[in-house]
């Protein structure tokens, strides 16, 4: 049935991205006009974008007959999809004001960049996961943890904005709509723990493959993956010990997410140039 749909996976994802950017634009305009923040409308527009993106990922999955995580474009789209999915879970449950706006911003930005760089959507052989469902689960979980870390970075950015407003004694504008610093700090802590647990589980599944086929996992990818994981683990432990709190915790979370994102490109390039590496790619930090 998916094959009968008249547009391509990229087009569906582009429409989804337009919805995200539309939500961002609408939210910013409402704040600039000092109108009440349209939480329900933001939710609806993001839901429309999410639906299109889900369709796009499904179409791509049907094309490659597997989980669409074979190139940077797909990985970026999957991270964005995870981020928006998490917003739908966290937003209504914890009523974090403006989270929708920030989610729309990051989702729109990441997705747009992925769409605008055609080289990121290079072709790759079908069945790169080697038909191993554990490797697919590893890859999906790892990317989902990146979605969690993306939302940690968003919450941290919101924290820094609110804290700056309070320190600079600014009262009006976006500050009024943001959640409290304490709420944001607690939320960032909980999400960080969740993200570390999910990434650890992903690595555990991947480790089973790596132990059995160590020659098929490039050292560079494994090192970067472990570095990202160790970074987040260290931040989590320091946070739980109350040695890395509030602003420093927020800055560390944002810096780590930027590092994790930036590491995708070299890791993916390494996979493309590595003749040994097919299924094993997936141990990379996706």
């Amino acid at each position: 049935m998916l094959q009968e749909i008249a547009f391509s996976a990229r087009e569906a994802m582009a429409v989804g991205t337009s919805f995200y950017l539309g939500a961002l634009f609408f939210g910013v305009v409402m704040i600039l006009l000092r109108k009440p923040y349209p939480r329900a409308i933001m939710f609806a527009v993001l839901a429309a974008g999410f639906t299109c993106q889900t369709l796009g990922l499904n179409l791509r999955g049907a094309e490659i007959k597997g989980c669409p995580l074979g190139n940077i474009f797909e990985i970026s789209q999957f991270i964005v999809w995870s981020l928006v999915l998490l917003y739908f879970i966290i937003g209504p449950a914890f009523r974090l004001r403006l989270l929708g706006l920030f989610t729309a911003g990051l989702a729109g930005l990441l997705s747009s960049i992925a769409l605008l760089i055609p080289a990121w959507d290079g072709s790759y052989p079908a069945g790169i996961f080697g038909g191993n469902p554990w490797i697919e689960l590893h890859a999906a979980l790892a990317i989902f943890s990146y979605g969690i870390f993306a939302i940690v970075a968003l919450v941290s950015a919101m924290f820094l904005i609110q804290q700056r407003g309070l320190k600079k004694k600014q009262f009006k504008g976006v500050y009024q709509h943001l959640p409290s610093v304490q709420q944001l700090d607690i939320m960032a802590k909980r999400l960080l723990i969740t993200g570390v647990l999910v990434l650890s589980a992903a690595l555990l599944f991947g480790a089973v493959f790596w132990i059995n086929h160590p020659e098929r996992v490039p050292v560079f990818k494994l090192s970067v993956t472990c570095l990202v994981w160790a970074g987040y683990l260290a931040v989590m432990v320091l946070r739980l010990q109350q040695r890395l709190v509030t602003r420093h915790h927020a800055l560390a979370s944002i810096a780590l997410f930027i590092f994790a994102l930036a590491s995708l490109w070299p890791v993916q390039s390494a996979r493309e140039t590595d003749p040994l590496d097919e299924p094993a790619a997936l141990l990379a930090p996706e």
Partner: protein
Amino acid sequence: MSEVLQSLFVLGSTHHEAPLEVRERMAITPAIAAALRQELNELEGVRECLVVNTCNRLEVYGLANSKNIETIVRDQLCTHSGVSRALLDAHSFWHTNLDVLQHALEVSTGLDSQMIGETDILGQMKNAYADARAAQCTGVVLNRLFEKSFQAAKSARTQTRITRGQVSIGNVAVDLASRIFGHLRDSRVLLLGSGDVAEKTAQSLKSRGVADITVASRTFENSHALAHRLGGAAIELSDFSAQLKRFDIVISSTTAPNMLIERAMIASAIKQRPDRPFFLIDVALPRDIDPTADSLENVYLYNLDDLSAIANENLELRKAEIEQARTILKGHAWNLWLQLRRRTIMAEH
């Protein structure tokens, strides 16, 4: 008597002329204010005298025959407040005659207040007048001036909407606390001093869900009475530093001449609760809390100027009303001026 009207004066230093650091140096206690008024009134050439002393305002109203009265009053004020003459001259104003009337009317109405349109100033003016009258320091002119200014304030308030949208310090504090803590149910509040502003701020926080309020002031009876009104507990002022880490919000409004909460004290408290924010509200003058504490991580310190600036953010919306109130007061001031002159002429004949 026409000479008398020629020498109606007011010397003042308010938030318009002096920043917080200067105001806290000029701040005087009620006892010193009373002594200043008495000494000025006993000077030869000074016929009437009244001192208005609030956290943002120190004003000396008077009626004098002496030609060099400005120098005399400035010197007296320096002697009592302990500031240099140069500092006072740089941060004060001197009005005479009709300007005094207009100024007194605007002050009573709250137009000259740091939080424009606030009503507390009227009560403070009434108290200052009652004290001066009881001490027999006022006469025909100041009695007439102050009684008329209270009437004019009432009239301007009822004819305009200058108080509409007025945000109190309590409301600002509650909004800030919400931006720091979210809901306030679990926040613990410490009140240092039993001042009026602190009490109102605590009431506002209580109305938004704060359940745990502790009061500490120099007089335990006062602490106990205020704690009883707020449904909280009282502790000795000497005990608060050891318990500082227990609290999330501290509202300080003591009349202590020196700082009560040093930066090191706050740093030590925050070290024991690094992931919980500390909201400090300093409405005292001189300030009770070391201003450098604001740079500490997770500490949010707001003083009178900060809170007033936030409260006045919606001033643009009330600008037209404020102008209208000012025009009404100009009419009252002119009428009062004519009345006083008429009395002068009649007295001369």
